[in-house]
């Protein structure tokens, strides 16, 4: 029986591609799906593009494929990557230039049409209010501050790119799992309404889209066989799926790699960033995880079957990002004795300074590193009297960048004139721009006709 082997690429912009080489060399993969775009990433790329119109794609693309292509070509492996970001054609041009320099041959496809920032008014004129998905607020409240707006495309344009003979498919925003679902549709010829098979493919994609998190990385267990027992994280193998024509899949990883694929590591990833597990939305199908079966076969192999699919949603999701002001941060440390008492006294002094200087921020957020910066209000405050050290970290938010720049300047006097043992001040970094996200919906018919797939062969 024919199986298709798809492997995980990167799980975010900046992730390691070393494990991808192992999947190609020893894991027998035929396709690599690589997810470079978190919700935040398009904002970073937008800033790049404002500085340089040729930029706007993730810069790890060219070094990653330059490192992997000779191996991939030897093993006949194809790539699907959303590294095109806001500029898939620019990404292709950069890659073509690099490959041409090395005399490498490849057929590189781009998928465009997800970016709708220039079509907002047209979409509204066509009857889409583009109101906020959760709050229902009007898009007029953020329209002027909008930095990007992209629809999550499904697998079909990627399938078209593979059918055209692409070795490398570069996309902008697509549903993460589409990078893995597309080669399965292409290889098995699944129909666009074969809901249960598509749901299996979506499950596979979801298990692979976060790289090492699907094979024992970030495994948040303190039981027997918990995170400390996961072997050789330094050489973790990213997850690989061996998929059968009916969609049944075995999740595994490259032989001899680190990490672990078992019932526990797979189910932690299965529910990750899922809202209602009985209605997990994608542009291609809606998945019900309630009927899934995970069977631990041992030796880093878990069989996944039984997904239930329902017809795709009537609308595609758009996420737009808008300028939401500026943030600035300053930290200052205190040692034993009474570290916490001194840090709290300093917080009070800073707030007093701000009030007297009439510096009014939209939000002031205080954390104590070493006590509550990660657990927030759920931190255990019963053991604070005898800490070796603690850092006060204060952050502010304001619409006016200059107001944020003024914030860290309230701190340096504390070194000689505040509570004792102040040390390790930092706060000189430039303010960072904050981003509001605007999720909304749009009819397929308004997006799909604009989606273009084009193919270019390197000389």
């Amino acid at each position, binding site marked *: 029986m024919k199986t298709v082997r798809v492997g995980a690429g990167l799980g975010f912009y900046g992730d390691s591609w070393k494990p991808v080489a192992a999947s190609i060399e020893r894991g027998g993969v035929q396709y690599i799906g690589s997810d470079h775009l978190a*919700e*935040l990433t398009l*904002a970073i790329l937008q800033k790049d593009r404002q500085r340089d119109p040729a930029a706007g794609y993730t810069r790890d693309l060219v070094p990653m494929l330059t490192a992997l292509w000779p191996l991939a070509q030897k093993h006949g492996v194809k790539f699907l990557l959303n590294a095109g970001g806001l500029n898939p054609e620019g990404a292709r041009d950069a890659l073509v230039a690099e490959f041409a320099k090395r005399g490498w041959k490849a057929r590189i496809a781009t998928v465009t049409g997800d970016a709708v920032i220039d079509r907002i008014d047209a979409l509204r004129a066509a009857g889409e209010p583009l109101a906020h998905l*959760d709050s229902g607020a009007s898009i007029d409240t953020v329209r002027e501050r909008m930095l990007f707006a992209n629809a999550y495309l499904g697998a079909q344009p990627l399938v078209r790119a593979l059918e055209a003979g692409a070795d490398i498919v570069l996309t902008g925003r697509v549903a993460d799992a589409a990078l893995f679902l597309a080669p399965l549709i292409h290889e098995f010829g699944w129909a666009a309404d074969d809901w249960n098979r598509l749901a299996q493919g979506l499950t596979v994609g979801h298990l692979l889209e976060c790289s090492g998190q699907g094979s024992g990385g*970030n*495994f*948040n*267990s*303190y*039981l027997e066989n*918990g995170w400390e027992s996961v072997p050789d994280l330094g050489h973790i193998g990213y997850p690989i799926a061996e998929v059968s024509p009916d969609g049944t899949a075995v999740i595994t990883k490259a032989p001899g790699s680190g990490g672990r694929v078992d019932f*526990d590591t797979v*189910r*932690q*990833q*299965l*529910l*990750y*960033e*899922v*809202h*209602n*597990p*009985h209605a997990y939305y994608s542009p291609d199908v809606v998945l019900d*995880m*309630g*009927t*899934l*079966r*995970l069977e631990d076969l041992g030796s880093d192999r878990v069989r996944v079957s039984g997904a239930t699919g329902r017809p795709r949603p009537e609308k595609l999701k758009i996420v737009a*990002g808008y300028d*939401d*002001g500026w*943030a600035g*941060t300053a930290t200052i440390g205190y040692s034993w004795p009474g570290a916490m008492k001194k840090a709290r006294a300093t917080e009070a002094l800073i707030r007093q300074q701000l009030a007297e200087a009439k510096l009014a921020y939209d*939000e002031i*957020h205080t*954390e104590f*590193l070493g006590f509550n*910066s*990660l*657990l*927030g*209000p*759920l931190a*255990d405050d019963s053991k604070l009297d005898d800490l070796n050290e603690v850092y006060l*970290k204060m*952050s*502010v*938010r304001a619409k006016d960048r200059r107001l944020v720049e003024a914030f860290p300047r309230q701190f340096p006097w504390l070194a000689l004139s505040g509570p004792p043992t102040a040390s390790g001040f930092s706060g000189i970094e430039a303010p960072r721009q*904050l*981003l*509001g*996200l605007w*999720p909304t919906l749009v009819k397929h018919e308004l997006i799909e006709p604009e989606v273009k797939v084009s193919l270019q062969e390197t000389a």
Partner: protein
Amino acid sequence: MKRKLVDIAHARSGDKGDRCDLGLFAPDAATYAVLKREVTPARLARHFAGMASGPVELYPLDNLLALKIVLNGALSGGAARSLRSDNLGKCAAAALLRMEIDI
């Protein structure tokens, strides 16, 4: 007898906009039955009162011996605008594992 969740279960959390979502996993069917009985939306709302401003959703998955938990309004408006160190809610699962339940 009271036990902390960290000693009987494991968990992972993540973010989507201003929602923090958590998976809580039992090692066996008996523990799963206890989790289903004790880790209720009301109990979760109390536990995360300082963090989540919106309602708590709970989806039991018998096939995975797991509970899916969604905390609405739990990430200060979302990762991209939040001032929190854990802006992605990655440590919310650890906070959940601190919960003490009757077994």
